[in-house]
């Protein structure tokens, strides 16, 4: 395999690693109004959203905040924060996540770690997604 090919391959890894991100992120309110909620991803595929998760998210938001929260909630993984650490950047989403984990002090951006990521992904399987940042 030529060196140039390997270099292209490595660049491709970085390019396609986030192909599971959505084209547009509808708000929580918009998704609740849909009969069968779904989102279209960058690779063209359709990702089904579980309506029970939308209802569960409603328990963690203030009334009127449904227009602020965009689904899926993005969990940002960046190796510069250290292994296993992730960030929830959006203020509305950070508020929801901190309420879910019963964190008294809300910091923005909100840092979460391995076990918390697992728990969040277990409960909000279709309404959260992980994005990988390479700097």
């Amino acid at each position, binding site marked *: 395999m030529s*060196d140039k090919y*390997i*270099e292209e391959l*490595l*660049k491709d*890894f*970085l390019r*396609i*690693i986030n*192909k*599971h991100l959505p084209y547009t992120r509808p708000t929580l309110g918009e998704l609740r109004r849909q009969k*069968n909620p*779904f989102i279209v*991803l960058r*690779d063209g*595929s*359709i*990702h*089904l959203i*579980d*309506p029970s998760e939308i209802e569960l998210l409603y328990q963690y938001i203030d009334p009127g905040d449904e227009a602020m929260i965009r689904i899926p909630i993005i969990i940002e*993984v960046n*190796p510069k924060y250290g*292994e*296993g650490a992730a960030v929830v950047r959006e203020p509305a989403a950070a508020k929801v996540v901190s309420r879910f984990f019963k964190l008294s002090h809300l910091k923005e951006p909100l840092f979460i770690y*391995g076990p918390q*990521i*697992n728990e969040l*992904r*277990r409960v909000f*399987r*279709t309404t959260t*997604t*992980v994005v*990988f940042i*390479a700097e």
Partner: protein
Amino acid sequence: MSTSLQRVRPTKIELIKLRRRLDLARKVHKILRERLTILVNEFFTRLREAVELRKAVYSKLTKVYLDTLILYGAYGESIFDYMKGLTSKPMTAVVGLENIMGVKTHSAIVSKPSYIEEQVIPYIQTYRAQVVELLSNIVNLGRADKAVESLGKEIVKTKRKVNALEYYLIPAIERTVRYLRMKFEEREREEKARMKRVKQVLTRRKAL
């Protein structure tokens, strides 16, 4: 571990290219390792879910089967037509795809049915609730099983990529960079020795 060096011309340009490639490879390795960790955690979460659902399905299946036999024995085949007649909205499942960090897997979302309240045979309410829960669990078990399978395949692929980078590509580039540096240092030392020799010759000539 491979001890091979990459075939490169010993020039400064090549060294710069190799260092850039090494940075890229390390970056990709870090990202892939993070992805692998998250995929493995996701795999275990789904596996636990699948095990729990399987246990629930097996325990409910026996109970529902026995209850069906009792109902069938007591009221005959017509009881099921009667129950069907009482259902105003049937149970449905929307089947589609779910994307778990780039891993596509089948997903299904079950919607609960609605019925007209039954007062004549009270046991029907309990029986129907059990059947709905069982069917819902079966669909969820299928979804969880499929996710485990897809995640397993992706983990194998990602692990191979991570290992290829960690044990082959990055060490090979590092060795080549080291080799080129040594080559340049050697050239520098040769150059110094040559200059000293030339200086000696010139001094000797001047003395004559």
